[in-house]
């Protein structure tokens, strides 16, 4: 079923379907061509204010993280969200690129991220005489285990816990807002439809038929 047919099936009027198709034209082509994380650098975009377009351009042109930092972010991201039978890893979904953008966009992330990465390397140097990315996988995991579980982490690792919490959140944001992430989590909306309530089998499953 193509989009026009599905709109008809939903009982949308010709007018509304027409308007919608017209309005979505650019978006659909973009969506079709776009890789998971590629975002358009703006020309004149409808509904975007000139200062927003300018700002995005500047952010895309700037670089925040060093190559070494990006490498650490990539390793950490894939430790947090690895490839499994259902979907790819954080780096497959270009999460590191997203993190590079978002720290420029939301500068409050910058110092905790940069400082957190440095904290991690110093911890590794003290323990293993190597920076994080030069450590063996076993060493990396040994260190991550000390900061990934807030309730059982030692008090002296609290700064590492705070950093890892932030890194985990950014990785989840970056991963689950891609096509890969949508597919993984099973989100099936953002499309014209007719809402008629919770499907009967699900109402029954939760005993909600009469609520």
């Amino acid at each position, binding site marked *: 079923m193509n989009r026009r047919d599905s709109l008809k099936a939903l009982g949308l009027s010709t007018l509304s379907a027409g308007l919608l198709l017209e309005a979505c034209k650019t978006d659909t082509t973009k969506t079709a061509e776009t890789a998971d994380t590629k975002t358009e650098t703006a020309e004149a975009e409808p509904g975007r204010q000139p200062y927003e377009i300018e700002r995005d351009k500047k952010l895309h042109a700037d670089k925040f993280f060093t190559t070494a930092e990006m490498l650490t972010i990539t390793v950490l991201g894939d*430790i947090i969200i690895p490839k499994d039978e259902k979907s790819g890893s954080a780096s497959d979904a270009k999460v590191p690129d997203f993190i590079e953008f978002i720290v420029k966009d939301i500068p409050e992330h910058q110092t905790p991220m940069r400082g957190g990465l440095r904290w991690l390397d110093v911890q590794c140097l003290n323990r293993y005489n190597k920076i994080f990315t030069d450590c063996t996988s076993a060493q990396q995991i040994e260190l991550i285990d000390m900061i990934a579980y807030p309730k059982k982490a030692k008090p002296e690792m609290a700064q590492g816990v705070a950093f890892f919490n932030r890194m985990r959140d950014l990785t989840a944001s970056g991963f689950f807002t891609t096509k890969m992430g949508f597919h993984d989590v099973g989100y099936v909306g953002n499309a014209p439809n007719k809402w008629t309530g919770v499907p009967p089998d699900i109402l029954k499953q939760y005993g909600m038929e009469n609520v």
Partner: protein
Amino acid sequence: MSDLQIKKSSETYDVVIVGSGAGGGMAGYVLANAGVKVLMLEAGAYFDPQKDSQQLKFPWESPRRGAGTTRPFGDFDAAYGGWQLEGEPYTTKDNTDFQWFRSRMLGGKTNHWGRISLRMGPHDFKAKDGLTDDWPITYDEVKPYYDKVDRLIGIYGSKENLENEPDGIFMAPPKPRLNELFIKQGAQKAGVKVIPGRGAVLTEALPGNKDRSPCFYCGQCGRSCKIYGDFSASSCLVIPAVKTGNLKVITNAMVREVLTNKEGVATGVSYVNKEDMLEYQVNAKTVILGASAAESARILLNSRSEAHPGGLANSSGVVGRYLHDSTGSSAGGFLPQLLDRKRYNEDGAGSVHIYSPWWLDNKKLDFPRGYHIEYGGGLHMPSYGFGSGIQNMNGMVPGRDGKMKEAGGYGAGLKDDYRRFFGAQFGMAGRGTAIARYDNYCEIDPQVVDKYGIPVLRFHYKWAPDEIKQAKHMQETFQEIMHNMGAIYAGPQGADTNYGLEAPGKIIHEVGTVRMGDDPKKSALNKWCQAHDCKNLFVVDAAPFVQQGDKNATWTILALSMRTAEYILQERKKLNV
């Protein structure tokens, strides 16, 4: 010497309207359709939801994945504006924390609002407790206009026959989402009534209207609607009014003041054109302000003249005073029963599906008036912030193997947790009556101007024990509901945060700054929203409100603006304005 000059128009309009939101838009719509020549000045850019809405975009179409960096309610939200605008400051005094949201665009804040459309009831216009001033009008006087607004714009809801929650002319409401059924069950067990939401969204075709189509349930009203399936003043009022040929809009026109003659009669307005930065003056027989409660007060206070030394329409001194915003406090959690729930499209409508109208008797309570509760939750589209704080959730329920997990983590197990928790969360927010107080006000800051040289507003606003106790009650109610739902949630917000009571302004229901009343010594406007001191000046936004109920302001703005516009038509016939 700069080449700054004032460009005076020789044309005189019947009416000039400042602002294009719910109030200005409705007045323009009524007047233009009656053949009146109207000029509308909008301080922001042109905006047509059909072309400019970000509806149906996916998060990966935003480099920030929908984060609210430049737009406070997210990158796809419709509002051009925010809590702070470049070059347009406002100030506070006496440690006030007042937050002022401004949308600089055609249709104003109606492009992104929650579409929750509640009528104020008989006891909101005339309170039983006598604690606040009565409105100069009753519910029965406003009811016909609420009815007309319902028919003109379209609203969903259910007939409930509640005394202070008057029914309207409703389309069918959307059914609750799964999480909302749990909420309903939990609330009812706590003695809290839950009824279908009331929203300005077309769940059916709007009779007689060919420009708008029914909702297709993307749940994105906040982005504004390309098929005009919900109410924005841009799509439903201003753009149709322009099509009559009787209404002209000038965008990027930032109004400085209302001009008056020696007799104190309004003759037009002056404004800055933000594109060429020149000063303009336009003439009109009638001036209508619909710039928003605070902005309209600002314009009046800045319109000083010999005839109006304390600002226009301000011989009473009340302009800027009685500022009040709804109270707000919220809570949320997740439903462990809904882990691993089956997937389906649960986007629904972009306004609330269910809510709780105020249900208690104040005789048994330690605060006056009350609040309603708005609810939400479901399989919503992932966006920036998805899965945030999972370490606060995944240690609280057993994993797939039935064993408790250590909170936080990484790897395949964590990845699976994000899937498991998807769609299990919910939230609830109280929106309550704040008492209109003389001592909560905005005024002109004597020292600060914006980049156009217009003196800015300075806010003074303190919550009183009435509002703080109300927030405490909200928190207690939320705890009981969430307990009954079998939810997992954090404890109540306490005295250290005023029980989660939001800063005034945060709910964006600020009203009351140019109040109506029968007594010109105690009010700025008469019962037609006409200035006591200046008969050809009207205010049609939320500034005229005497005392807001717990109901969101928009539907009342629309009804009052329509009523005022019809009054202006009658007065024009009698040659009074």
